[in-house]
Structures are given as C-alpha cells and as structure tokens.
C-alpha cells in the first residue's frame, strides 16, 4: 500500500458492531480518499446502513475506530459528527415533512450559523443579516439540486424524486467534507438515475467526497472509482468496479452459491 495518510478523508479501523448476539458489522476496515466517489454495496441485511450509522454517531461501534481527517471521532454524538463535516441522507427519506423545502435546507445551515438565543429573541441586526444570508444560501442549494421552484412547498408534498434531491440539498447545507448517501437512487426510473449520477458528479466538483450505498450496479459502476462489498457484516471485496464485478465471492453473495 502506498497510500499517504493525508490522502484519506475517512479511515475505518476494524469497526465492529454487535447487537446482542448478532454481529451486524464485523471487523470492517476501509479508507476513503479525498475527492473520490466511494461505493458500498452488498445484499440486503449486509450491514451497510449500520456501518453508516456507526460513522455518523447514531450508533457507537462495539470496537474499532472511525478516523476523520486523522482525528478519532469514534463514539461522537450525531450533531458533533455533522459539525466535524460528515453529512448524510437516509435510506427511508427523513425530511422535516411539515416544514417548507427552504426551511428544511435552512435547518441544514443551523450548524454553520452563529445566532444565539438573544439574537433571535430580539431580532438583532446581526441575526437579521445572518437570516438573509442563510436564506440566499439555501435558495442557491435548492437551485443546485434543481427544486428551487418548490421552495415554499411543504417537503411532504414533493414527489418522491424531488424529496431525495431535497434531502441531498439539506445535507449539503451543513457544508460537509464527506457526504454519505444511503441508496440515493432507490425507486428511481432509469432517466432519474442518470440525472442523479450527474448530480453526484456535480457534488464532487464542489469539493465534497461522496460515499454511497447503492444496489443498482449500473449506477455504482457508472460513477464510483472504488467499491467495497459487504456481506453478513464482513468486507468480502474491495477494488475498482471491473475487478469487483468479476470477484467470485461477490457473485456468490449476490446470486447465491451455484449448485
């Protein structure tokens, strides 16, 4: 391995998560390079989302370490992880249903805002300026993902595809260095998948590293440079798409053992 440590934005060292007797994530180590699109694939129940949850602080790993930019963040609280620069979307979309799209994204800005209780209580000039700036930034993000026209709609009233986009805009609003997308193309038409891939590349151009979980091999092969395959919580393969695709263990995990 010739990897310079500084090239890695995120390193997982032997991360294990047990729920009672069930080992959901089993001794997974991997490293994600700055500025790449990294994919995590595997059959249902392989522990992909659990791994995400361990990285974002929703769960605390039973053992092992999560290292962001050389700093150990194992066991940090979700809001601390967000502040440190990891944002995520959810497999089953978790928007703030009864807030407008604009407000959803403005909530994403929360962690980069400075207004305190008193500023808001008395609407001090600094607070007004910050609100105006944040509104502008939120609108820019809505334009970026292509749903600016829906800014004043309730998130709940958006069509499915736009909800996924809104969730990405909200995550980007936290100014992440690393963006975790949990099955962003689930339930998409082929056309929507193409548009999503374009959006992910645009996100990369903003200087955000992307780590995504995806089932659709076409999407994964199309955009990611490196893939890790998880099965029963274990890492069974790692490498560039064409290599992983032909790996017998991966084929077995996806298609089952041939008789």
């Amino acid at each position, binding site marked *: 391995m010739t990897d310079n440590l500084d090239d890695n934005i995120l390193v997982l060292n032997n991360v294990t998560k047990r729920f009672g007797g069930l080992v959901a994530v089993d001794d997974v180590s991997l490293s994600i390079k700055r500025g790449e699109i990294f994919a995590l694939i595997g059959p249902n129940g392989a522990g992909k989302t659990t791994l995400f949850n361990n990285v974002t602080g929703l769960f605390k790993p039973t053992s092992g370490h999560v290292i962001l930019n050389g700093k150990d963040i194992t066991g940090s609280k979700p*809001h601390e992880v967000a502040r440190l620069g990891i944002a995520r979307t959810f497999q089953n979309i*978790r*928007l*703030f249903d*009864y807030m407008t799209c604009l407000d959803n994204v403005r909530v994403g800005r*929360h962690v980069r805002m400075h207004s305190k209780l008193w500023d808001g*209580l008395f*609407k001090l000039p600094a607070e007004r300026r910050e609100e105006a700036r944040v509104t502008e930034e939120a609108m820019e993000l809505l334009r970026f993902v292509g749903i600016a026209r829906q800014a004043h709609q309730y998130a709940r009233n958006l069509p499915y595809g736009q909800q996924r986009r809104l969730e990405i805009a909200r995550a980007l*609003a936290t100014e992440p260095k690393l963006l975790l997308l949990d099955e962003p193309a689930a339930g998409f038409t082929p056309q929507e998948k193409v548009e999503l891939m374009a959006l992910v590349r645009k996100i990369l151009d903003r200087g955000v590293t992307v780590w995504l979980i995806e089932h659709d091999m076409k999407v994964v092969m199309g955009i990611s440079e490196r893939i890790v395959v998880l099965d029963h919580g274990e890492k069974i393969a790692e490498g560039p798409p064409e290599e992983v695709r032909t790996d017998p263990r991966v084929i077995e995990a996806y298609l089952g053992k041939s008789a």
Partner: protein
Amino acid sequence: MSNRVAAPPRSLFARLRLRERIRDRDTAIYGLLLLVALVFPAISLYTSDGSTYLIAVAGHAGTYVLLAIGLNVVVGFAGLLDLGYAAFFAIGAYTYALFASQQLLASPIHHAYHFPFWLMMFVGLIIAASAGAILGFPTLRLRGDYLAIVTLGFGEIVPQVFQNFDQWTGGINAIGGIDQPTLPAWVTGPWAGADSISIVAPFSFSFDPIAYYVLIFILVSVAIVLVNNLQRSRLGRAWMAIREDEVAAAAMGINTVTTKLLAFGIGASFSGFAGAYYGASFGLVSPDDFLFIVSITVLVMIVLGGMGSIPGVIVGAITVYFILNWFLPLLPPAVQSLASSIGLGSLNARSGDWPGLGNETQNVTLLLFGLILVSMMLVRPQGLFPSRVREQELKHATGQEDEAAIEQAHA
C-alpha cells in the same frame, strides 16, 4: 425619450399595506385582539356603571394567555408534551410571594423581604427557567408518553412541596398580604373613581384592576413579539425540526438535548413571569392555585386554539377562560329566569328529590364544559386558528384514512 414616470408619492395608508396585511390571517387576528383589548375596558366600564369587576376578570384571563403562549413554545413548537406546566407557574408565584411579603419573618431566617415587583418579575422568570432546565436535564432524553408522565409527576410534586414546607411557605394557610407593584407616577381619572384626570405620584397598584389590566396587556404584548421572533429564528427552526424528526435533526447538527432544554426553559420562564403577576394581582398565593387542573386547562387552551399558532393559542386561552369563568357560572341563573319567563317557573323550586332547576344546572356545568370541548374538537380538530402545519397534518391524516378505507373496501 423615457417612459419612466416618477412614482406618485405613496400615502401613509398605502405604505402600511393594510389591505395585504388584513388578508394575512394572523395579522388580522392580532389587529382584532388589539382592538378588543383597547376597547374592552371602556365598554365594560360603561355597561356596568363604572364597576371594574369585568376588567379584573380580564386581567386574570391575561395570566392564562401568558401561560398559553409559554406552553405553546414547549408543546406546539418543540413537540414536548408537558403535563406539569403549573409547577413553573407556582414557582414564579411563590418566588414573588416569599420575597415581597411578611412571610419570611415567621420562617427560620426571621427576616421579611420586600423586593420591588419589577425586579422580582425577572427573578421569578429566571428561577422558573432554571427549574425548567433542572427538570429537563435528566428527563429530556425521554420521548412522548414517558416525558409526559415525568412532567405530570413534577407538576404534582411542586405544589406539594410548597404545601409541606409550611415553616417557609405557610403551607395550606397560603401566603397573604403580598406587596402590590408601585410606580413612580401614574395617571388617574374618572375611570378610577377620581373626579378629574390627574397624576398620582408615587402610585401603588393596590387593587386597581385597570392598572393590572394595563400591566398584563403590556406583558402579553411583549411576550407575543418575543415568541414570534423566536419562531422565525435559528432556534425556532431547530425546535420544529426536532418536533418533525429528532434523528434527522441531530444528523443535521442540531444538539437536540440543549435545544429541547431551551424550549423547556423558555416555556417555563413565561409561566414564572405569569406567576409573579398572579401573586401581585391577587395578593394571595396558595398551593391550591397550582393543581393539575391548571396544567390541563392551559393544555386544553392551546389544543383548542391551535397548537403551534401564536394567535390561535391566545384566542384559545381567552375562549376557554371565558367559558369556564363567565359562561358556565352565569348559566344557572340564566336557566332559572328562562324557565320562569316561559311559564315553567315551578321547576325552579326545590321539591322532593328534585334540587331545583338552578341547582341542577349547577350540578351539570362541568359536564357541559366537557361537552363543549368535545364538540369543538369534533367540529375543528385542528383548533380555532391552527398553524398551517397542524392544518396540513390533519388533512393528510384524514386523507390517509380515506385511502385505507378505500383499499379495504376493494380488498
């Protein structure tokens, strides 16, 4: 050649944009409330021959408006069900009562304090807010029903504590002779029984209902402005995000524990405020004033008015207060006189097991109150003036039920 014509100077009327503002529902309600609040004292003085009784009632209703605005922050904005809100009200009232009466003379410290109301109002606020934070710190990890039970317990404990520490608080005998607020100067006139308009200096509120009315009017107005500001700030959005989805809110970098603590503390501080006002205006504070029924009444007010909507909860508070303290007590005599006037006067007399129509009506007033609440919630489940959010939620909820019903019918 230019087509540009200098814009005609806009009149004051145009600049106020009254037309647009009236179309905005909330502004219209605020305007109407303001108008009623200003006109009400004059009308009630005029119609009741200078009696200030109704103004005193309205001043007391103002306490509940303040409580409703505060509880709305906790329940309506942040979505935390608080069933012990009266506890903070009690803490505010007792804070003022203890330090503005002779009470502590009889206590182990043998010294009575008489701090001014204007100072103690803020002390009450701070102490109630701290109590909110202290209660919130260990309990806000709980969600939904569990939090409701814990706050319910807190609401039971606090009045009990004030009752049992009778060495300090006088226990069940209550604290009386509480100081009234004083001002360096005040305007008096015919409305207060004086012969002409003049300036009184210094002025004690004593038991002048009009002075209290003005005071609570100012307090409520300030509360409305501040809570409106909060709702449209970074913190207000964070509360709403937590109410909608706590996991997603945390993933967006919101510290859910401190944000919920702030909701609890700010909600509590309003009732601390209200408590100090309550103690001063009645001159008497007893543990019985802060029982569970007070918490529930305030909760009913905000649910009925429209949770999360500030003008809604104000209207809700006034409506429920009006039903409880004006409509229901007036009912028995009204029914009696109605019976006499339609020739059924014999029903009014007590005979055998029949207690008389007046007493019978008296017996069923709370039943009637329940019926009124149930029918109002059936007719307007979203509240009188709901926030847009509540309206949508209920629409979707019923929509889903319809869809489910259709699916079942097809199955």
